[in-house]
């Protein structure tokens, strides 16, 4: 399996060059918001205020990073405030090896705007509050993330395995799970 370089990301400082890499150097994309994205970013800043740790965005979708403990509050403000984000479009986890990043894509059917919330969790025992009381769509997303990444969601009443069978050992979404070393069954 090819070794992954998670350091070259927009929201972490670029690491020193790794001499063992072949091929062209890694280019980091510039994140530029267009006009509509700027409006949405301004609304987000107004809604969330001091909860925001980082903010950037690409084209018409701004993203903000909040602390994991305050994510539930931030999501509630997005849903109920002027942004009225009434749909949780997508929820996923990204395994940067030293941390797990939860990404929530929210959408508002009334305003037709998209926004992304991110939160960083530690790599061992990642835990974050469940959002099932805000959007019902979160129930299955959280079960799936728990299956594949091992993230715990206190507050979600049903955490049985969704995609994997009961008794599956390990969390296959993590980079540490051996994929091509799989033995024939």
């Amino acid at each position, binding site marked *: 399996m090819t070794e992954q370089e998670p350091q070259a990301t927009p929201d972490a400082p670029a690491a020193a060059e790794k001499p063992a890499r072949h091929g062209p150097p890694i280019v980091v994309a510039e994140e530029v918001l267009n006009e509509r994205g700027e409006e949405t970013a301004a609304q987000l800043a107004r809604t969330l205020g001091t909860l925001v740790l980082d903010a950037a965005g690409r084209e018409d979708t701004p993203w903000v990073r909040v602390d994991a403990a305050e994510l539930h509050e931030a999501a509630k403000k997005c849903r109920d405030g002027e942004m009225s984000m009434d749909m949780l479009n997508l929820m996923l986890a990204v395994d940067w090896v030293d941390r797990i990043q939860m990404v929530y894509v929210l959408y508002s059917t009334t305003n037709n705007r998209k926004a992304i919330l991110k939160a960083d969790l530690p790599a061992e025992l990642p835990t974050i509050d469940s959002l099932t009381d805000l959007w019902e769509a979160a129930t299955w997303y959280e079960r799936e993330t728990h299956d594949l990444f091992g993230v715990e969601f206190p507050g979600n009443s049903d955490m049985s395995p969704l995609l994997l069978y009961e008794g599956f050992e390990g969390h296959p979404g993590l980079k540490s799970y051996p994929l*091509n070393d*799989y033995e*024939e069954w």
Partner: protein
Amino acid sequence: MALEGNNDAQSLPLFVPQKWDREKGGHFFHTDEGGDESLGKGNHPAPNRISGTVPGVITAKLDDLIAMGRSNSLWTLTFGLACCAIEMISTHMAHHDFDRFGIVTWPSPRQSDVMIIAGTVVKKMADPIRLLYEQMPDPKWVIAMGTCATSGGPYYKSYSVVMGVDHIIPVDIYIPGCPPRPEALMDAFMKLQTKIKSDAKNHQIDDLRDSVEQIAPAPAPDAALVADSVPIATEGTAG
């Protein structure tokens, strides 16, 4: 592996797969210890009772007739797993009609002859497939449609995919393709029909051989001829 568990719908037995060990006798073929190679691997139905009791010419034509009947009226279990199921459904429909072969799709495993595994076999699904296979009564056949059922296909080396359904059940016909065309599925059924008829003929040859053995057993080789001959089998050759 034995499937234990109650039939209580509340706690259906969920499969925890263990590593399947070919040497320890985990093969599922119907062949006896002797391994009758002439009958071919896969499924072959037990010979019919009449031929055991009244061997010979009388039942040869009956076996042929039964085989012809079976092969021209194969009822398949509606069992589409993934993308190949769409091509399987297309084959049943008006353009590439399957009904002209006598093949109808039947939802209940207890009344069907053929199971077409159309699609990727995932470990979570291995238990239900084995259950369905055991619910089908003899004579039954299995067709592995598509590369996923044959050997894992494009999902080879994935963590949750069984690399080919023949780890779980014995397969008669393999169809390559991703997905195979409806014409390929029809060709597979025509080959299955040939297999059913030739298996029946092979049964007859064995029955005939057994009955001839009973009436006139082969004489022991002549001792004078044997003494001068050079033994063929030495330690090096396989026994």
